[in-house]
């Protein structure tokens, strides 16, 4: 079939100017992914510094101020310079391909979103060049700690400006994603034939559209406090510090789903392919995604239980309820695998790893949704372990799964299975070793965001285990980098559909031509490529029966 054949018009290797001027969603997607991964490595180095500092009691590498800067920049980088743009990168590259579009609805706006993101990220990082160093206020920027009185470095102002620029970029990007899904679908692709990954990106974009303006407004208010004498959050001047927490978490909790939902989509793409079954309950998964998005706006103040000024029953019940649609998704993923013809290539390994790690994060999150337990665990290492279970399980594992799964489409090359398995094994072991001890540390009452801790033998051992795990995670990343470098040294050789997958991106060449498709197969279900493959197989069988072609 024409749509499944490989063509020779792979995109030529472009020069720097081509990347600077490109409005092609595929190049912009690659720019997002590359930038995000570079920031991921930098954020990971900061995490290693944190773990090395905590390997033994006392201050080794830095002082309390430097430690505050370390965890502030680590959190900011991982949430907003890695996870969010990584999701945006995958969405940029694959959303138009999955719906049969030639590009995003607003290609130039798409490029502007990327440049605003990158420049915003560089503004945040430029705090390292500021007198006093980068921001030291935590990625949550709580006031009055973030006010000028307590955080004197200009790095904090740069953090606020950079975050606002990135927020603006995300809003523009979300408008683009929503418009593209609503207006650029190929003929036959009704909303209930849209691939699950694209559905998740759509819901993510709605979350961004309604939550990031709140953050951007709050950042500007805080900048006005710090630079122009405003008093929005200064209690001594009549301001309200709790208002910051409301505004931040009204963005912050949906932000968790902003970074996780697209990766839920990735998992929903990978599992059916390597189970050789359609996704169990396609429509249920969509409704669960919408429910998660809607509920995510009603749980923000479970981060504020200990302030004593929020409704505990309301937010506690809402937090318990949001576990239900997530549970539906888990059920559907497991039911998809049930009695499937499972094969465990590297993408599937990461998907199963995701299920394991994220499930832990979900369960420990429900526990924290209970106010009496939250009062005990708040600001302890239990919370650190929980959020890493959610965010590393929910984004990093799925991100690596997506890379192994879609790398052939991105580049026409396949990543090494052998290196991928080593990478996965190191990360699974490293993750468990790093964060399981932290649950115990949290239960023992070790507070987070402190550079030092008492010389208790149990705490020392648990911290050293955690540091060893972190080092394993760092070393375990090397096979992935090696796999990418080795793959890129070879010419593209992958067919259009190396995995025998389902959605429309596999109907075009690897990598796709400039306008994405020469022809698109008829779209009669949410699995048009599977349908086309079956139709081709049926036609071949009929031809064999008729004697037009020789049988196998």
């Amino acid at each position, binding site marked *: 079939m024409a749509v499944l054949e490989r063509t020779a018009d792979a995109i030529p290797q472009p020069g720097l100017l081509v990347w600077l001027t490109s409005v092609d969603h595929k190049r912009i997607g690659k720019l997002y992914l590359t930038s995000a991964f570079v920031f991921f490595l930098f954020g990971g180095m900061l995490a290693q510094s944190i773990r090395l500092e905590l390997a033994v009691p006392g201050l080794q590498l830095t002082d309390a101020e430097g430690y505050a800067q370390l965890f502030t920049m680590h959190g900011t980088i991982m949430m907003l310079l890695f996870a969010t743009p990584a999701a945006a990168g995958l969405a940029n590259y694959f959303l138009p391909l999955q719906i049969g579009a*030639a590009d995003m609805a607003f290609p130039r706006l798409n490029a502007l979103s990327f440049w*605003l993101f990158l420049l915003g990220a560089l503004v945040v990082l430029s705090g390292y060049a500021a007198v006093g160093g980068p921001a030291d206020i935590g990625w949550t920027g709580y006031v009055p700690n973030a006010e000028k009185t307590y955080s004197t470095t200009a790095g904090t102002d740069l953090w606020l400006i950079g975050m606002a620029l990135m927020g603006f970029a995300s809003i523009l990007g979300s408008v683009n994603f929503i418009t593209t899904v609503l207006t650029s679908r190929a003929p036959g692709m009704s909303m209930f034939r849209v691939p699950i990954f694209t559905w998740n990106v759509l819901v993510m974009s709605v979350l961004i559209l309604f939550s990031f303006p709140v953050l951007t407004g709050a950042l500007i208010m805080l900048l006005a406090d710090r630079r122009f004498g405003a008093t929005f959050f200064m209690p001594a001047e009549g301001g309200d510090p709790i208002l910051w927490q409301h505004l931040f978490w009204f963005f912050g909790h949906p932000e968790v789903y902003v970074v996780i939902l697209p990766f839920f989509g990735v998992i929903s793409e990978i599992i059916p392919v390597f189970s050789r079954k359609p996704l169990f309950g396609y429509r249920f998964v969509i409704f669960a995604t919408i429910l998660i998005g809607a509920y995510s706006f009603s749980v923000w103040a479970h981060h504020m239980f200990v302030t004593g000024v929020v409704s505990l029953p309301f937010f506690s019940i809402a937090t318990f309820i949001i576990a239900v649609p997530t549970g539906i998704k888990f059920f559907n993923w497991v039911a998809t695998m049930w009695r499937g013809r499972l094969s465990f290539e590297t993408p599937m390994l990461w998907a199963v790893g995701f299920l394991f790690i994220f499930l832990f994060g979900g369960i420990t999150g429900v526990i924290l949704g209970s106010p009496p337990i939250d009062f005990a665990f708040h600001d302890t290492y239990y919370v650190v372990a929980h959020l890493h279970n959610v965010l590393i399980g929910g984004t990093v594992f799925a991100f690596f799964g997506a890379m192994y799964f879609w790398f052939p489409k991105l580049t026409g090359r396949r990543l090494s299975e052998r290196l991928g398995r080593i990478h996965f094994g190191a990360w699974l072991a490293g993750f468990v070793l790093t964060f399981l001890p932290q649950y115990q540390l949290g239960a023992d009452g070790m507070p987070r965001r402190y550079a030092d801790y008492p010389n208790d033998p149990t705490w020392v051992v648990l911290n050293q285990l955690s540091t060893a795990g972190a080092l394993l995670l760092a070393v375990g990343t090397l096979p992935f980098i090696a796999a990418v470098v080795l793959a890129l040294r070879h010419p593209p050789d992958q067919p259009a559909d190396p995995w025998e997958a389902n959605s429309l991106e596999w109907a075009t060449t690897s990598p796709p031509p400039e306008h994405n498709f020469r022809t*698109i197969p008829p*779209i009669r279900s949410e699995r048009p490529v599977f349908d086309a493959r079956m139709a081709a197989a049926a036609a071949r069988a009929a031809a064999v029966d008729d004697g037009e072609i020789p049988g196998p």
Partner: protein
Amino acid sequence: MRRLRGLLGFDEPQETKFFLVIAGWGIFVAIVYWFVAYEPAGTVLLGGLGLASAVVAARLVIAARASGVHQEAAERRASQEVQDAEADLSSAGTGGVDTPFAAMGRIPDPSLAPLAVGLGVALIALGPVFGIAPVALGVVPFVWGAVLWLGAARDEFDATVELDPSAGTDTIRR
């Protein structure tokens, strides 16, 4: 009954229903939250979510009405058989995706405009920290990029109208 269905948005396309559901959810939770917590910040945020989503839904409804999509047409489009038949008719040409997009002006040419505008905005945003200097520096790429952007958009619009005169009138009417 038919009127009620229309008022509740049951006959609207899926994407409109999607935003209507979010609008309904936001407003519902805002009301519940107010009577549970009597807390203004959260109530305003939730109400704002509902209203903002309602604005998007209203825009989609108005756009559908303005482009002549009345109820029967919406129902007809919702029918999967008709959709499939339309897809069959277009499958030879794949809905136009094999048309040279650049010639139709549907995909812009590569341009430095987005980078220039982004650089300008980023430099201007540094004003609160570094004073007037970055603002003055940022205005240059911002204006240059904006002019480049608008000029290219105008050229593409003209090219589109030249290839398909109805596209221009449609855009103007909207």
